[in-house]
């Protein structure tokens, strides 16, 4: 009896961890897509209404997806507190918090970092260029993330359970 309970627990545990890995594969393209659309909103704010960055960021954060809102809202809060932080510092700070709560990879992080370095410091055309570049890079990452997800989500969700089953069979 005790053996059976142990076996079930092993299967459940490894199954769940498999699902978690699969989940992170499927989350990344979603998060990237949400980031891209948020950046698109930011571009509109900057290009057409020349909204000041703190305001633009908080507007984007109120309209965009919940995960990206953490990044834009965090940067907006830091900037509007007038603590003396520049846009890139505020962005960097928000980015750290945001990154740890997402399934993004370090490649994605460096795209956002590069963007942060040029936020708000140049004229409109230049800002648009930087935002477009970041969106372009994110699109590329999204495509590869989707491909990876298609391959890995199924694999990992089965692999967890089957791995657990294998362990149980070997030990039983």
């Amino acid at each position, binding site marked *: 009896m005790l053996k059976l309970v142990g076996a079930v627990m092993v299967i459940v545990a490894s199954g769940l961890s498999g699902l978690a890995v699969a989940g992170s594969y499927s989350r990344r393209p979603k998060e990237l897509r949400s980031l891209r659309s948020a950046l698109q909103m930011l571009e509109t704010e900057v290009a057409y209404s020349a909204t000041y*960055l703190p305001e633009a960021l908080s507007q984007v954060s109120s309209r965009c997806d919940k995960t990206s809102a953490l990044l834009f809202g965090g940067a907006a809060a830091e900037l509007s507190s007038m603590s003396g932080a520049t846009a890139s510092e505020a962005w960097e700070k928000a980015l750290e918090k945001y990154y740890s709560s997402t399934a993004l990879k370090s490649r994605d992080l460096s795209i956002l970092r590069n963007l942060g370095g040029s936020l708000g410091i140049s004229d409109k055309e230049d800002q648009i260029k930087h935002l477009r570049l970041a969106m372009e890079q994110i699109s590329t990452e999204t495509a590869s993330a989707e491909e990876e997800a298609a391959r890995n989500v199924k694999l990992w969700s089965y692999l967890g359970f089957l791995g657990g089953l294998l362990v149980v069979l070997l030990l039983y």
Partner: protein
Amino acid sequence: MYQCDNAVSGILPVLPGNIRSMVAAFSHSIMDKIEEIRIRQGRPLVLGLSNRDVFLTVDGRPTHEAREAYLVTPVDMERLVQLISKSSFYAIEEELKNGFITLPGGHRVGITGKALLDGGKIRTLKYLSGCNIRVSRAITGAASGVLPYLLDIDGGGVFHTVLVSPPCCGKTTMLRDLIRQISNGVQELGFSGLNVGLVDERSEIAGCYRGVPQLDVGLRTDVLDGCPKAEGMMMLLRSMNPQVIAADEIGRNEDVGALEEVLNAGVKVLTTAHGKNLAELVERPAMGRIIRSKMIERFVILGRSRGVGTVEDIIDGKTMRTLGVKKC
């Protein structure tokens, strides 16, 4: 002990951290009022006080020795520009063409750098290397002394008035308080308030933030914020039915043209002009035309012979004679 006054503490958030603490330390220790903060890359940090200027040391002490003074670094300058633009350089491009931007609270920041031209016109500034932050202070009652000379009690209105002074003599402060008192009315003088239309092209009279005046410009004042004067005066004339139209710093031809239009429309005019005295003003082509036409009824000459905002003279525009008030 002198407290860091409100006006200066309104400016502190746009200064980079190190400069911020120097200025804060200074304004706590000295009785003088800071009028300007001049920040020039590679040169000492200068504070303009009411009658002199001082360099600041790293710990916020005033000094007259340039070598003791804190030298502004390129990093300071970069941060300063980011902070005054609220990290939105792209949003201030239009304002940079005029060489200055206005902070919430109506403080004006003059900016110099390298001008980029496009077809002979300034497109924007680049390599910004110098800033002059002018502290704007609303002084309630600054205009009380001159107001009785400008009111047309029998006619129930005010005279067409031009305030004339060199830069930094309290023109804008005086204008703001005049507007406030005219708009609110002055009971002691038996003067009830008038509807005032204010064209605040540089946002320094009303200090509008998102269109709402941050400084007291009176109960019956409509503010067109950031609008070019000539167009703004015509807009107000047509739309808001003002009894008085006020604008700052009339000088360009189109401003004067619009001013003439207002003068002829039965609306009273309240404005300012750069100049040391009337003789100097008459020399300027556009202003000279208006003065010679005797349309303006009162000229108030401001100076700083007894401190900022000294009323040097009030002149009747019709007779060109002084009204004998040298001690307001």
